[in-house]
């Protein structure tokens, strides 16, 4: 009898099927991966198991007993715990307060007892975190440990981890897998949501693949027939090659010159400390780092969206420090922000309006004091055609497009102006494999036509595949610039991401 059994689960969101007749089971003491592309229904299925969503049909059995979870507290009582990708921690509260949130407790909280129990659990599972710290003061890795402890504190028998390594450095990921093995040795089962094939192959016992909301199959990872190729075929329903072809280009003169930029974050602390780099024509310059180390502030400071308190930004020798975004666009600098739904697009407007956002003041789109909508429509159509955007029409509101199509539209909008410099942040974040591949190819082809690209990403594989040079950012400082990223062992890049300077790594 399995520990968890989900039978014929179906869930729709306003008519769209997220899960359709999905079967899923977890044995005692195993690490079970749930693999699938974005939008395949992994998180939905797990949120159902955790009681956050209610299935339209289907049954859940825990220890062979049928359960109906009306809310997460029901799931927790049955021994199901979940650590979400965005940790469900209250940032303004301390770790110990978060531990007992929602639990049965005396009216006045027994702080000492709680802290003692946290210390015991920390010891037992080797999860170090200071119970007296405020959550917002913790690093991402520490927050994750706190979130795992939170579930162990509730005696979770089965622990769901939603893409736990997405926010970690390679070293932190390794530690996490040690912890997971600790937990299974102590009798817990772990469900591991991922779309990273190598992790699934190396770190799990079995894997269930979801495709478009349906079960594509369950296989043993250790069986000799299982391979990354097989899994990716199950995921996508066809064979896909992962190698991306980057032709050799001749790099030209320096186009983009950023020197000793300093800037503050929203709380007034230092976000950027003396960031300097130069990008040459046709060059792709990557910036790697764990989320929240100043990447967003860097983009904003050089794009006129945040004040650079010192240093300069030059485009083709022209000083554009703290110039407006419009002035930068007029000089051929274009920016594709990470948050495409709130910064990059006006999602309530239609495709046509969005496709002219960065050039509506320039003829032929602008004509006198009004906008030439016919020309705007033509421009939108040409972007849609050239960049394979799938949309019912140019009059469709952008909020109805999928993430991949939205990103293609935005990339098309910025590239149609053949920019001198393209700043692009997390271009493939949350996209499926085919859209990811497409976006990466278009970035490479833009660089071939002479665009200098600043690529900021958290995806190491993406950075290694695309970048000519790679800088590592940590707490607003470059830990070094790697001249030949492909020849650098990934462990060393990981060390730099954790704050070691390049001179100590080499």
């Amino acid at each position: 009898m399995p520990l968890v059994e989900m039978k014929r689960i179906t869930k729709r969101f306003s008519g769209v099927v997220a899960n359709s007749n999905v079967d899923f089971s977890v044995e005692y003491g195993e690490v079970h991966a749930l693999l699938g592309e974005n939008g395949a229904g992994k998180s939905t299925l797990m949120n159902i198991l955790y009681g956050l969503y209610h299935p339209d049909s289907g049954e859940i059995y825990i220890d062979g007993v049928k359960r109906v979870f009306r809310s997460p507290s029901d799931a927790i009582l049955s021994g199901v715990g979940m650590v979400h990708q965005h940790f469900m921690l209250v940032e303004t509260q301390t770790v110990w307060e978060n531990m007992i949130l929602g639990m049965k407790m005396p009216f006045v909280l027994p702080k000492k007892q709680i802290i003692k129990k946290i210390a015991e659990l920390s010891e037992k599972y080797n999860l170090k975190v200071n119970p007296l710290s405020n959550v917002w003061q913790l690093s991402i890795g520490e927050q994750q440990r706190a979130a795992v402890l939170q579930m162990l504190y509730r005696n979770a028998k089965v622990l769901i981890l939603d893409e736990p390594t997405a926010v970690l450095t390679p070293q932190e990921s390794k530690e996490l897998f040690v912890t997971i093995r600790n937990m299974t040795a102590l009798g817990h089962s772990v469900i591991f949501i991922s779309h990273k094939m190598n992790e699934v192959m190396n770190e799990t016992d079995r894997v269930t693949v979801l495709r478009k909301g349906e079960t594509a199959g369950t296989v043993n990872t250790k069986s000799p027939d299982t391979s990354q190729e097989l899994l990716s075929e199950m995921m996508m329903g066809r064979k896909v090659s992962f190698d991306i072809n980057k032709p050799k280009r001749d790099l030209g003169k320096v186009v983009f010159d950023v020197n000793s930029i300093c800037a503050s974050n929203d709380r007034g602390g230092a976000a950027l400390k003396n960031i300097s780099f130069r990008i040459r024509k046709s060059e792709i310059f990557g910036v790697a780092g764990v989320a929240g180390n100043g990447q967003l502030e860097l983009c904003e400071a050089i794009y006129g969206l945040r004040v650079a308190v010192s240093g300069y930004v030059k485009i083709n020798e022209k000083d554009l420090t703290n110039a407006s975004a419009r002035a930068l666009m007029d000089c051929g600098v274009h920016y594709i922000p990470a948050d495409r739904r709130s910064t990059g697009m006006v999602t309530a407007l239609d495709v046509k309006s969005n496709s002219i956002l960065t050039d509506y003041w320039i003829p032929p789109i602008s004509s006198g004091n009004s906008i030439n909508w016919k020309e705007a429509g033509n421009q939108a159509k040409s972007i849609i055609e050239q960049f394979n955007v799938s949309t019912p029409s140019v009059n469709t509101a952008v909020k109805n497009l999928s993430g991949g199509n939205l990103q293609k539209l935005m990339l098309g909008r910025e590239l149609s102006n053949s920019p001198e410099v393209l700043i692009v942040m997390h271009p493939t974040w949350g996209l499926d494999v085919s859209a990811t591949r497409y976006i990466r190819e278009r970035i490479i082809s833009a660089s071939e036509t002479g665009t200098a690209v600043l690529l900021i990403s958290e995806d190491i594989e993406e950075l290694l595949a695309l970048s000519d040079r790679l800088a590592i950012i940590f707490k607003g400082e470059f830990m070094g610039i790697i001249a030949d990223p492909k020849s650098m062992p990934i462990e060393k890049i990981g060390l730099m991401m954790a704050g070691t300077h390049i001179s100590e790594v080499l």
Partner: protein
Amino acid sequence: MDTVSMILAAAVRSGTPILYATLGEILTEKVGILNLGLEGIMLMGAFSGFVVSLTSGNPWIGFAAAFIVGCLMGLIHAFLCISLNGNQVVCGLALTMFGTGLSSLLGRNYFGVAIQGLQNWNIPILSDIPIIGQVIFSQDALVYLSYILVAVMFFFLNSTRPGLNLRAVGDNPHAADAMGLPVVRIKYLYTVVGAGIVAVGGAYMSIVYNKFWAETMTAGRGWIAVAMVIFAIWNPIQAALGAYLFGGIEALQLRLQATGTSVPMAILLAMPYVITLFVLVVISIRKGNGIKAGAPASLGVPFYREERD
């Protein structure tokens, strides 16, 4: 009683309605709901408290009635903002207009009537302490109750299980939900109870402070309380300090009027409101340091569980 003690005692008394309103709003905002209907709720509390005191002859029943009416007003706000996910600012403004209008309409026949109200009660021994005794311990029971409420609320918010739950819901309702807390029920509870406490502040105006009813008698104190919540960084103890500071300005203003200064009366009357604006400017400038610690992160944001892009 010397002049200084008298002004300070008056400061506490005129700060008390603002203090109740601020405490009630802190409770509501801490759970993530912004209620801008304070002015209307206070007026409804002032009116209902007055009428019930008058007819029953017992000011305590008056306060109880005001609390219940306030809770009902809070329930309207909770239903609109939590169940229907309405815009909290718009609902709050509507509640202010509703309360102002309804209390004026119903109160037409009560204008000019006076009641006994609640009398001062000097606490034995404590009230004999020089100055402090006269300022703090020679007041009425509702003032003493507000001292207790400040302490209880501070302890409740910071050291108890329901207080922790309340803060969690206001800071991150999704986390609270994932940890199994009944988010909607908790939001309802404190929106309703908070409004009840606000209404008690209004009733203090008609039952104790003036001992009569007049339309729009709260004269913007509800709005001052909204600003006071920010001034206090959502901390009940700082709320008391802020409320008495404003009470002090008002007492001083009355005093100056009585002594007949050459400063025009309109300027004196406007003083508390000008100071409110000034305080908001100061707070906005130092924003980022203190604010983050107290401000509920999800304030004003509707909560949906099954939200999808």
